[in-house]
Each structure stands twice: as C-alpha cells, then as structure tokens.
C-alpha cells in the first residue's frame, strides 16, 4: 500500500520556496523545449499544408526544388496531354505550368536587411489547383500588365509589397493590386503575377515546373511515372505535391529540432542537478519521518515510490509552468529562409497538444531522474539509523 499522495503534496507546499525555485528551473527548460518544437512544427506545417495529395508536381530530373528546375514548353505540353491529368469543363488540362524565380527584396523597416522571396508566374488554372489561395484585399492581377498579388505576411514583411505600393524586381516595377491568404501555407510567402510577363522580366524561357491535378488521385501518379519513364524525350521527376513540400521542410525542421534538443538536453542536466539538490534536502530533512514510516511497517519500496512521486510532482509543476510560459508564442508569425527553395517562408509558431504533452513528459522524466537517487537514498536507510537522526 502506498503512502498517501497528500503527504507529498503537503510537503511540496510546506517547502514552497524551494519547490517554486526548482520548478522554475524546470519550467524554463520545458519552455525552451516547447518553443523549439513549436518553431519546427510551425515551419513544417506551413510547408505541409502547401501541398495537396491530389496534385502532382513535375520538376526537372534531379532538382529538388522548383526554383532549380526548368523545362521547355514542349515538355509541359507532352505532360498536359497525358490521360492521367484531369480535365476542366472546357476540355483544357487541369494543370498549370509555372515560372518560379527567387528574387532578393529589402525588408520593411530595416534598411540593410533583405531576403529572398519566391515569385510565381501563375495563370488562372494555378488558382483552381490551389483552392486555399483567396484574395483578402484588392483584386487579381490583370494579364499582360506588370501587376502582382502578394501573400499577406509577405506584404507586411517586405518593403513596397503593401496593397497599392510598387515593388521593383526583374528589372522593372510591379504594382501590388491584391493581397491573398492561403491557410498559412508557404504560398503566403510568395508573389504571384502573370507568367507571360514575369518570364521575360527574368530572362526565362520555358517553365520552372508543372503542377497538375490527377484524374485518379489514388493510382494516377504511378501510371504517370511509368508513362514518363517510357518517353525518351522526358527527363523529369513527378511527385505528389504534399510529398514535395514535406521533403522541403524536412531538412530545416530537423536542424531546428536537433539544435533544440541539444540545447534542452544540456539545460536539462543543469536543472536536474537543481532537482537532485532539492530532493536530497527533502530526504535529509525528513530522515525521522522515513524512519517512522519504516517502523510502522511501510516497505522501503513504498518510501522510494513516495519520494519519486514527490520529485515527479515537483518537476510536473515546472512542466506546467513551462508550458504556460511558452503558450503566448503560439500563432506569432516569424520567418526563416527555407534552404531548399532559397527563399523566405513566413510561418506561425505552432504549439500542438502533442508538443505540450512532450513538454510535460520531459518534466516527468526530469523528475524521475532527479528523484531516483535521493529516493533510493531514503529507502536504503535502516530503520534504527533513520530514527536516530534528528
């Protein structure tokens, strides 16, 4: 039979200064852990929701990014005519061949800062392929004129990208006529305009990539790939759009997570030493109580468990505090360069229940580590010895 939980709760309350200080240390570790995971998760989410599993993206063989890819009009035409591609009501292929270029733009409110931005030459079909893209201000660009629409976070982060403003890239000026949102996806970090004008502005002939809707989402890609392999004119890679964007997020998300875990692991070592100190002090101060309970017939295992539980409770307080500390960052927009596409992606810190759970679990683990040795120390005493101490 276990020693009542109230015994531990009351003890933590009685020593509240020590409890709070130790829990405070743990809280900061958990907060940093949660923040890092939220950063990685936000970045990943932004890219993952960018792609749709029903769409297939075609890039030049070997290039991992649209930006590095290129294909001529002939290639695009061959693929569009394949039977795996869905058709629109007017018989056109449900596909969009696009020019994707990265351009360097100055940041708003920062005269020396600049970053790369993806510019996409999209036509009307591009919007149909990505139904989450919708205008929130202004209007769509007209074809044949130097007008662009920009993602909302981008319009706030870069100079000249606000509605009605003029931005310069590709050797000419572009009027921002609309602002769009796209469910927080990577498209919100892009500038969209008419491909027929953007291409010449960047000296690009042909396209960067082709995105198409599959007629049969379940097996369409497989037969498309077979058809492509059989055609000696084609040197391309075809991937589900969601897989493509997930792969793009992988490297940076992994780097963020790895750095975060490194930081948190070292910080955690320091915090565990704090927990050890507190629990050793608790065991030391309660030697006589331990002796009494042993004398009453409690097993050493019960004593060990009780102190272990107390340590876990102590660290769990820290875990909860840490999660609360980190919570306000949820939804805050930040940006970083996605090295796969060489351009900046704006995204929101994203704290999921899973991340909070990870934070709490981490605090429990710290509690077990920080409590085990003191608890074992407590349980190992002989009754007579423990009772003698005062």
């Amino acid at each position: 039979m276990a020693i009542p939980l109230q015994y531990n709760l009351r003890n933590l309350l009685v020593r509240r200064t020590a409890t709070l200080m130790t829990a405070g240390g743990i809280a900061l570790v958990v907060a940093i852990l949660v923040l890092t995971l939220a950063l990685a998760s936000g970045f990943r989410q932004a890219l993952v929701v960018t792609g749709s599993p029903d769409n297939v993206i075609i890039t030049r063989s070997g290039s991992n990014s649209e930006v590095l890819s290129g294909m001529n009009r002939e290639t695009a035409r061959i693929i569009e005519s394949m039977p795996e591609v869905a058709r629109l009501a007017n018989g056109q292929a449900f596909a969009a061949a696009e020019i994707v270029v990265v351009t360097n733009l100055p940041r708003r409110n920062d005269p020396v800062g600049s970053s790369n931005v993806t510019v996409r030459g999209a036509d009307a079909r591009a919007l149909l392929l990505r139904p989450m893209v919708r205008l929130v201000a202004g209007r769509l660009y007209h074809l044949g004129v130097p007008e662009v629409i920009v993602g909302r976070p981008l319009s706030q982060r870069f100079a000249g990208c606000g509605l009605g403003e003029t931005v310069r890239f590709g050797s000419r000026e572009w009027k921002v006529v609309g602002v769009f949102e796209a469910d927080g996806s990577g498209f919100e970090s892009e500038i969209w305009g008419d491909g027929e004008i953007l291409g010449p502005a960047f000296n690009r002939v042909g396209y960067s990539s082709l995105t198409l809707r599959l007629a049969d989402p379940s097996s369409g890609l497989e037969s498309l790939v077979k058809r492509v392999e059989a055609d000696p004119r084609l040197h391309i890679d075809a991937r589900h759009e969601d897989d493509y964007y997930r792969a793009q997020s992988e490297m940076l998300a992994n780097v963020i997570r790895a750095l975060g875990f490194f930081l948190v692991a070292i910080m955690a070592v320091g915090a565990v030493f704090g927990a050890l100190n507190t629990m050793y002090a608790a065991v030391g101060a309660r030697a006589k109580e331990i002796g009494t309970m042993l004398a009453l017939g409690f097993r050493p295992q019960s004593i060990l468990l009780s102190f272990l539980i107390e340590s876990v409770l102590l660290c769990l307080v820290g875990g909860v505090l840490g999660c609360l500390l980190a919570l306000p960052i949820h939804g805050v927009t930040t940006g970083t360069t996605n090295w796969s596409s060489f351009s900046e992606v704006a995204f929101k810190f994203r704290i999921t229940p899973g991340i909070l759970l990870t934070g709490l679990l981490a605090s429990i683990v710290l509690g077990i580590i920080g409590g085990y040795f003191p608890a074992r120390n407590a349980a190992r005493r002989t009754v007579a010895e423990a009772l003698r101490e005062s």
Partner: protein
Amino acid sequence: MTGPIIRLEGVTKVYRRGSVDVPVLQRLDLEVARGEFLALMGPSGSGKSTILNLVSGIDTPTDGRVIVAGIDLGDLDASALAEFRSRHIGFIFQSYNLIPVLTAYQNVELPLLLTDLTRKERREHVLAAMAVVALTDRLDHYPRQLSGGQEQRVAIARAIVTDPTLFVADEPTGDLDAQSATEVLHLLQRLHTEFGKSIVMVTHDPHAAERADRILHLEKGVLVESVERKRP
C-alpha cells in the same frame, strides 16, 4: 496462543564504530510474559534502547535469537520484518514522530493503509483509537497545532489503531511536562489493564517505571537487577 510474548536467547549485539567493536548486549536472556508491562531502566549506553529495537524488528542481533509472539525474527527478511512490524508492533517514540504535514486523523490512519481495510472501516478504527486517547475533537489538526501531550496521545492512537500484539515505548514521557506525562502514563496503564496489552517501555523516569509490573535495570548490556512489583 500461549507462551511468552518475548523471548531473547543469548542475544549479543555489537556495533562497529569505525574500526572499533562496541559490545552493547552480551548473551542476554530475557522473557516477557503475555500481558506483562515491562520497564527497562539504565544509564545511556546500557543497551535498553537496543533491546527495544531488537524486539520491534528494526534491528537484528549479532548473535542469539529474538522470538516475538512466537515468531523467530531471525527467520524473517527485510520485507517480512516490515510486515511483522505492521501487524504486531505499536510504536510510541520519545519525540512522537508524527508526520508534520499530515493531520492527526491522517497520522493515525497511516498504519491502516498497510491493511486491507476499506476507507469506511479505516475511519471507524481511527475514530475508535482517537476516542481512547480522548482527542476526537482534534482530528483535523496538524501536529504543530497540538500540545506535546496531545501529540503523544495522537502517537499512542496511531500505535493502538492496528491493535498490535506488543507496544514498545521509548522514553514516552521524556519530552513532556509532569501533567502530560501523567496523562500518557495513565493511557499506557489502561492499555495494559483494560485491554491486556503487552508493553515494553524504556525510561529513565522512576515514576514512569513504577507503573510497570516489572522493572529491569541494565548496565553495560547486562541485567543487573529485576524488581517485581505486585499491583495492589
């Protein structure tokens, strides 16, 4: 069950202090009858507390046999000893040893957590024990809200709540003023006379010792005198 409640056969206890062996008990033989109230007296270091520790199963002899309630404690491992204590021994300490963060009620309930009793049954037992020590109005008080005498009475309630075979009391009045001491001793005597409990008490207070049936004097681990007191 008949026979003595305690039998010590040739018990020797040697403590190691660094590299020196300190003999505390030397080939001690002792029998305590069922229902007897025994007082142990002697200067510090005479081995009286050691006897208490041995019979209550919180220490083991270097040599010899300790048999309590017909059980040879030498046959028990640590876990079995713990169970032995919870079933057979009621402890009363000099400094009460109540758990400061638990209420009087919770302190008394503590040893019952080692039994199979339901919450309701435990409550009945606790209330009964608290009634014996006349503290039913202090159930929700924490130890520091009680006087020394009250604390010791809670400790006695904790000792009797499991209805143990043997009470061991280590200087139960050592930290108390005269009036509280009298109350506590009166309680012990009631346990002995009304409930027929066996008690072994270590004390250096002659007034306390007088309540016992028999007083043993120890010196350097050897029995030097045994006084039988016939109650009126």
